[in-house]
């Protein structure tokens, strides 16, 4: 497809050529016309002079004739004869000059006749002269007749001259009409040609400018491509299928550990760098590419001259150009980092898996093996207490009590630790769950201590959410039991549970969350509370604000809460005021 600008140029060229040809043709025709006209004029003048000559020669003849008549001297006969000869020549010339005009031909005939008559008159009078030496009546008559004939000839000639004059004027008028418009037309055509040339020039300059600009852009983009290839460890290549020729970008040489253009870009030279284990597969893929015109993502290794092994990845596709030449455009990328990172990740995953296995092995040890001896200690102590009570001294019995509470505490620690590690469990099944139900379960679980403390739990209607249900239930249990545990001695605990949906950006702690909305579930109690600076510390593992003797606890419960909330991509925040109570805000993200 020719571009529009080249089409314009072609049109301008053709138009210009046409106009110039027109001008040439017209000029030729015009000059022809002019030369014709001048020939007519020339002929006209020749005719005139010829006619004048006829008169003058006739006069010469007459002079000779008269002289002879007067003197009878034959000396006068010579110019007479000469004039006669000239006149007959003049008549022949005239005959050729007036060929184109029929009217003039007729007139010439008349003239000719009249001249012949005059000549006859001349010869008649010569005959008379020979007879007598004096003027006779006949001769006088002949002289008169000659005079009259002379007048006729003069009028013939003047008629012919008139006619010729008319013809000349006529002719001039015609050629004037023809020539009159010519300069204007020439001028117009010239201007037109100039305009076309000018337009073509403007068009060409703008095209050239655009070409220059796009050329500059192309250069910039080429430089950028080269740079980006170096930075991103990529390279490109083109394979001209018909000629079976390759073109490698500079960086492809670099990816092979070579200087750009340090070797001939051919497939065979390229194969020299490919790792021998990958050669078969790559060769197979390339052969397939030659048939199908596409190389799907293919990974292979190359070995640099210094022995470095790099992982490359290639992809190519056939581009059918409009000029019909088949080219395959390919991209080859250095994927060494990718492969290595993948390997590292895989290694870490394996490590992680091993650690997880160890952790679950630890869980088992903690749950089974540690609990078993403890259980026995406790059972034996209960046996001792029941069976041997009478044989043990009072202080011995106190020791037994101490041992009992110590082992009870140990059991609690083990169980809590187990629970904590169980919140790490990999099987995280998020199911749509009615939170009200989970809260009810939690309350059932804690029914003993709720009744014992005469606690009152007021709660809002909670939403249905996608959660790991047993974990959220544990969360509720831990927070409520925490509130029950740290209640004021003489005041029945009141726990208020409220719910609202909040915009993430409105809350400091979740401002940067990826979710737009959060559920906010608040547990507010009227217990002993805590001082605000401890608000974050209370969630740390084994962290306690009170002595063991004041409040029982392992320091694990709230750590479990934090972990559970984090498992749900949420945030738990505590606020406390000594002797007033504590508030726990749980923010759990959700999608609307």
């Amino acid at each position, binding site marked *: 497809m020719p571009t529009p600008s080249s089409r314009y140029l072609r049109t301008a060229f053709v138009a210009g050529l046409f106009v110039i040809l027109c001008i040439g043709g017209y000029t030729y025709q015009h000059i022809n016309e002019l030369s014709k006209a001048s020939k007519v004029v020339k002929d006209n003048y020749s005719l005139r002079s010829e006619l004048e000559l006829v008169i003058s020669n006739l006069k010469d003849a007459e002079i000779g004739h008269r002289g002879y008549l007067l003197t009878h001297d034959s000396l006068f006969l010579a110019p007479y004869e000469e004039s006669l000869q000239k006149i007959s020549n003049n008549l022949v010339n005239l005959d050729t000059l007036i060929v184109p005009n029929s009217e003039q031909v007729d007139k010439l005939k008349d003239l000719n006749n009249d001249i012949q008559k005059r000549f006859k008159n001349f010869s008649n009078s010569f005959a008379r002269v020979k007879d007598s030496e004096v003027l006779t009546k006949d001769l006088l008559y002949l002289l008169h007749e000659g005079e009259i004939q002379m007048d006729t000839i003069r009028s013939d000639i003047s008629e012919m001259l008139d006619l010729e004059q008319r013809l000349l004027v006529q002719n001039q008028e015609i050629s004037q009409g023809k020539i009159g418009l010519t300069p204007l037309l020439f001028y117009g055509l010239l201007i037109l040609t100039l305009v076309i040339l000018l337009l073509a020039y403007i068009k060409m300059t703008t095209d050239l400018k655009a070409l220059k600009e796009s050329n500059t852009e192309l250069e910039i983009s080429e430089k950028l491509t080269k740079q980006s290839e170096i930075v991103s460890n990529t390279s490109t290549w083109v394979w001209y299928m018909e000629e079976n020729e390759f073109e490698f970008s500079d960086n492809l040489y670099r990816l092979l550990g070579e200087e750009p253009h340090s070797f001939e870009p051919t497939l065979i030279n390229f194969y020299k760098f490919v790792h021998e284990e990958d050669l078969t597969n790559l060769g197979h893929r390339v052969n397939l590419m030659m048939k199908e015109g596409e190389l799907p993502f293919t990974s292979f290794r190359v070995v640099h001259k210094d022995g470095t092994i790099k992982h490359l990845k290639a992809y190519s596709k056939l581009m059918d150009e409009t000029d019909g030449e088949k080219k395959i455009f390919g991209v080859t990328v250095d994927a060494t980092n990718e492969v290595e990172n993948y390997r590292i990740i895989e290694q870490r995953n394996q490590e992680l898996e091993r650690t997880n296995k160890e952790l679950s092995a630890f869980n088992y040890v903690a749950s089974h093996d540690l*609990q078993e001896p403890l259980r*026995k200690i406790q*059972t*034996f102590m209960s046996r001792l207490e*029941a069976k041997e009570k009478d044989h043990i001294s009072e202080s011995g019995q106190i020791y037994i009590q101490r041992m009992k509470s110590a082992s009870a505490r140990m059991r609690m620690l083990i169980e809590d630790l187990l629970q904590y590690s169980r919140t790490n469990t990999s099987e995280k099944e998020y199911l749509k769950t009615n939170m009200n139900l989970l809260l009810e379960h939690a309350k059932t679980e804690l029914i003993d201590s709720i009744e014992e403390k005469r606690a009152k739990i007021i709660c809002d209607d909670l939403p249905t959410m996608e959660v790991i249900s047993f974990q959220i239930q544990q969360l509720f249990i831990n927070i409520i039991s925490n509130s029950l545990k740290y209640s004021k001695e003489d005041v029945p605990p009141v726990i208020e549970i409220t719910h609202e949906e909040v915009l993430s950006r409105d809350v400091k702690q979740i401002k940067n969350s990826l979710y737009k909305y959060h559920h906010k579930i608040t547990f507010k109690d009227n217990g002993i509370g805590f001082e605000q600076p401890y608000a974050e510390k209370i969630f740390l593992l084994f962290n306690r604000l009170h002595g063991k003797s004041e409040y029982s606890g392992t320091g694990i419960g709230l750590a479990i809460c934090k972990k559970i909330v984090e498992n749900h991509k949420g945030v738990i925040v505590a606020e406390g005021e000594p002797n007033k109570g504590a508030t726990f805000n749980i923010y759990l993200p959700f999608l609307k």
Partner: protein
Amino acid sequence: MNSDYINLALADDDEDDRLFFTEAFEELKVRSNVSLFKDGIELMNYLDDSNNAIPNLLFLDLNMPKKSGLECLKEIKASQRFKDMAIAIYSTSASEEDIENTFVIGANVYIKKPNDFEKLKKVLSEVVTTNWQYHTSGLNKENFLLRL
């Protein structure tokens, strides 16, 4: 054989637990014959011998050497001979996995060994006095783990 006596069997590798078990039944004053087995092999040898009476109720520890309680449970449940024998799992751990597995295979009840002798007595008396033939029909996963 006196039909008032209830035939009980316990398979547990732990000597202390076997002691607690027998002492508990002594104190409970349940008229019972208690057979004790140190591991799964010993238990299965006894059960496979057709000369021996089939116990009414078998207490089965899960974590035993040589043959685990779970393997014993599978073998017992595979045989028609023991279809009337009730099986109580008697284990230290109460992991979700163990509870699920034994329930699916067909144990009647899951007892987590208590850490107090009085509680042990209470649990055992509860299990022994339950009519398992009748109880089976109402069996479900929620009350499979015995809670007191």
